[in-house]
């Protein structure tokens, strides 16, 4: 826990996990997915969560993303104890604070890229013209303005994932969560996507990314290793205040 201790003073913690347990099923078939995870992520950090399949990293991500609730333990997001929130407040938190990027893109078919990106704004009650503006700006960040009116089926995997990133960014969340975002992508698309993440982190976004590829994890400032539902290694690669280590344009520093 040396990394968190070093950055603790003066830094605002976005994620604080205290003894988080998650059990699936009950009785004889109960599966311990998380066995007491303690984790603290400060604003502006770029964390890669590594682990073999079944190590509990997706469960951890779902709890951090407020898609699932821990069986035991506390989770504070931006200082708010998520355990005390009801369903509608959780929906509000997902909409306001978190941007989610999934391995399988999870775009809604039969809706254009623009409509997919606009969707979180529609649920936030933002008006049509303003919504379009912001969605186009988000698509511009992932360099897909020319594909705005394409259907997901008309786009490559890399493009679809970039639309998903735009959707995650459109509400300007403080925290971006990515669950193996490069898992289905080829090398070129992976590079494009990680460049976007690097730029986002440089601009101050907190990023937590699940991966099992070490060269993807190399983009992060901090590496957390999970095994059998426990954190076995927590290693800081780059200081919190520094730009991400593999940022494409080294001239830009925060």
């Amino acid at each position, binding site marked *: 826990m040396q990394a968190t201790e070093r950055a603790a003073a003066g830094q605002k913690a976005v994620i604080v996990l205290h003894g988080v347990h998650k059990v699936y099923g009950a009785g004889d078939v109960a599966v311990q997915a998380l066995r007491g995870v303690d984790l603290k992520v400060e604003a502006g950090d770029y964390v890669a969560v590594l682990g073999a399949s079944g190590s509990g990293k997706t469960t951890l991500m779902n709890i951090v993303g407020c898609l*699932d609730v821990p069986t035991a333990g506390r989770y504070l997001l931006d200082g708010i104890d998520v355990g005390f929130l009801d369903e509608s407040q959780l929906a*509000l938190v997902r909409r306001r604070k978190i941007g989610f990027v999934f391995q399988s893109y*999870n775009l809604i078919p039969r809706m254009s890229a623009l409509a997919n990106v606009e969707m979180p704004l529609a649920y936030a009650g933002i008006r049509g013209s303003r919504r379009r503006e912001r969605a186009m700006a988000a698509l511009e960040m992932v360099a897909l303005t020319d594909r705005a009116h394409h259907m997901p089926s008309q786009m490559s995997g890399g493009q679809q994932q970039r639309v998903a990133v735009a959707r995650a960014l459109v509400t300007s969340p403080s925290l971006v969560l990515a669950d193996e975002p490069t898992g289905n992508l080829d090398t070129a698309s992976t590079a494009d996507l990680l460049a976007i993440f690097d730029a986002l982190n440089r601009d101050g976004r907190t990023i937590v990314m699940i991966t099992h590829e070490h060269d993807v994890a190399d983009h992060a400032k901090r590496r957390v290793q999970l095994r059998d539902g426990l954190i076995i290694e927590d290693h800081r690669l780059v200081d919190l205040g520094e730009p991400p280590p593999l940022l494409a344009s080294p001239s830009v520093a925060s």
Partner: protein
Amino acid sequence: MKAAEVMRFALHGLSANKLRSALTTLGVLIGVGAVILLVAVGNGTSKQIQANIERLGTNTLTVFSGGFGRFASRASGTQSQSTSLTLQDAEALADKAQAPDVYSVSPETSTSATVTYQGSSASATVTGTYPSYFKASNSPVQYGTYFTATDVNKAHDVAVIGTTLAEDLFTSAGDAVGQSVSINGTPFQVVGVLKSKGSTGPSDVNSVAVAPFTSVQDTLTGYGSVGEILVQAVSPSTTSAADTEITAILDKRLGVSASSASGSSAASRFSSSPFEVLNQTQLLSASTSSSHTFTVLLGAVAAISLLVGGIGVTNIMLVTVTERTREIGIRKAVGAPKGAILGQFLAEAVMLSAFGGVLGIAAGFIGSAFTIDGVKPVIVPSSIFLAVGVSVLIGLFFGSYPANRAASMRPIEALRYE
């Protein structure tokens, strides 16, 4: 999340599977169309029956000498009762003091006779009566005029004949006026021809000759009893009062005991009285209630098809929710509140059923434009509101279960669904 957004998402969801949406809509369309059309047919039948009865005159009462009463009274040992109506009975009914609600009294004596004119002949019902008969029985003349009270007093041999009879004997109905026809050998001068009436029974109501009461008695029926007495009440609303008054007068005149006369229902009158009063209003209400039952029955059958259409909506919405579980998960993951998901699927269900309802109204209107088995359907406005209201409620009710299932999904489980 605005209502317009919810509608937009719902419309998008429906248009994603157009054929399925169209077929579900068809189910509701048939249900709503059937309700509107079948209720219109029932209503049309009822209107037709009412029109037929109203043609007879709703404010008239017909007094018959009762056939049933005789046997009943003989069985009970009352032997001295008079068994048929006389002209004096009819005149007693015209007493304004005792029967203030009676407008006119027309005694009738009828017989079948052969009417001839210059070699052509036809059989007709010849009725001897008073001039008030024409108004009471709703029988205006088309050509010529009516006979008068003077004709009755002086027993003039004049007649007003029906259109069928006039056409049978003359080249055109209008030619009959002023001609002399022979009724069972007695010459009668035709003074008028009645307007054609719609037939309400097996016999042709236009094959008639109407002549003064006295002259028909003189020449055809003799001076016996009066067949029936046609009584016209002052207005349709006083028909029942007139009924009570003439029953009281006749009970007194014909010596019906107080106990047997006290029963005001038709049944007791049939069983114990020497006369019987047929009230057109009663006939009207009886047939109205039977056609109402008929309408309700038709409506119930149609309502079943509407219910089936509603179940179709539920079925399709359940399929849709299952099929789009992943989409629901995605929407929830990006922060869709429960209400928005509920609203979207509910709106889809209501749109399906409401759209079906609107098309069903159109189908009902188109169907009602045709005459079905001799009945001209008459649309009941309330059935339209009912059908549309029910179809929207069906959407809400039958859509709420699938929509609620969608809204209650845990995002994590919905996302995992393949």
